[in-house]
């Protein structure tokens, strides 16, 4: 039987240009997003149909999340936040289809996305606010002798953001898929064991079904969490003065 981590294997498809199954599913996700949204909005109906409603709900959902966290001026980051949300959500959900590769189960991908967010925050923060952006690390109303420690803590917390942001998504996707595979593996093992153990085989199957539902929840939830944190970090770039 295949190992539970075999599903995360990167398999080359066109080695010359480093095109792998991961690349295929990244492009697949992007194609699903763009194609799906264009198809859904092709009528530009004033009274939306089902598909267009879904597209509008996604748009409003991300827009509201962004505006709630950053205010109206945060809308300049809307294309970025929407792209991130849709990419993570679609990659997570595509990974739920049996046999499909999960792009976001690789730390390098989630880390790159997290660095994109933090990089945007830092660059925009410095371009827009100059050294005033560093006020992010100096909370107001802190006694002078405590300030050095607070600044160090704030700095560490800021630097750990890309790590926590990327690890959370990566670990959730990885663990969920491993758990699914392990329980599915139990079913096969128990059936193969014969005797009394065969009768127990439906139990891990039930577990696998329940986990499948949970994983769908996690796939959507982690995309949302990634987006909300992105919005909160972007708020720091927009309003660094606590």
């Amino acid at each position, binding site marked *: 039987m295949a*190992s539970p*981590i*075999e599903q*995360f*294997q*990167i398999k080359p498809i066109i080695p010359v240009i*480093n*095109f*792998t199954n*991961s*690349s295929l599913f*990244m*492009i697949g*996700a*992007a194609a699903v*997003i*763009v194609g799906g*949204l*264009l198809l859904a*909005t092709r009528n*530009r*109906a*004033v009274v*939306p149909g089902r598909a*267009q409603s879904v*597209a*509008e709900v996604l*748009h*409003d959902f991300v827009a509201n999340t962004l505006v709630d966290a950053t205010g109206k001026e945060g809308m300049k980051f*809307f*294309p*970025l936040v*929407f*792209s991130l949300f*849709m*990419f993570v959500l679609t990659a997570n959900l595509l990974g739920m289809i049996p046999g499909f590769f999960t*792009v976001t*189960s*690789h*730390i*390098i*991908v989630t880390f*790159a*996305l997290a660095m*994109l967010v933090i990089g945007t925050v830092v660059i925009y923060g410095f371009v827009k606010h100059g050294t005033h952006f560093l006020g992010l690390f100096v909370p107001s109303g802190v006694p002078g002798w405590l300030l050095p420690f607070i600044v160090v803590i704030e700095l560490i917390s800021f630097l750990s953001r890309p790590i926590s942001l990327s690890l959370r998504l*990566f670990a959730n996707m*990885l663990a969920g898929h491993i758990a699914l595979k392990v329980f599915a593996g139990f079913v096969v093992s128990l059936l193969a064991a014969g005797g009394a153990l065969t009768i127990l085989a439906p139990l891990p199957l039930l577990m696998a079904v329940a986990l499948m539902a949970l994983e769908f929840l996690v796939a959507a939830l982690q995309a949302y969490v990634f987006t909300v944190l992105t919005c909160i970090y972007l708020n720091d770039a927009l309003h660094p003065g606590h």
Partner: protein
Amino acid sequence: MAQAQTTNATTEAHGGAHDVGFPPFASETFGGQLLWLAITFVVLYTLLSRLVLPRLSGIIENRRAMIASDLDNAAAMKSRAEEAGTAYEKSLAEAKGRAQALAQETRAKLSAESDAKRKALEADLNQRLAEAEATISGKKAEAMSHVDAIARDTASAIIERLTGKAPAPQKVEAALNQIKA
């Protein structure tokens, strides 16, 4: 890179033919993943921000504007209807007032006219009455003036029959005047 390869080597040693260690930590695949992630994400971002999102927000904005303009139109129509209602009531009140004034005027005119007619008729009747009285008194006087002559003729005729000869008119006249006095 070297470290990753040694890890691979050790896991392969006790793992099996296709087991190449923990794939998410296989750093030799990082370059390729980053390359294709960058390509995909840039293309995705460009398509979304240039094509999909303007269309989507256009639809939503268009609907919002349409609803707002419809509401404005409805409010304008409502105020127009209210205006028309007040204008109607005003003209109705005006017309009522005019009708009343006209009725009053007509009544006054009619009564004045009938008054005038009545007065003219009365005057006419009075005049005619006076004329008739004058005629009567004229006729009466005329008739009375004939009475003397008739009495004289009658008296002389009676005397002539009684005596056989006509009396002298002066004597009859004097006798009559004596009786009249």
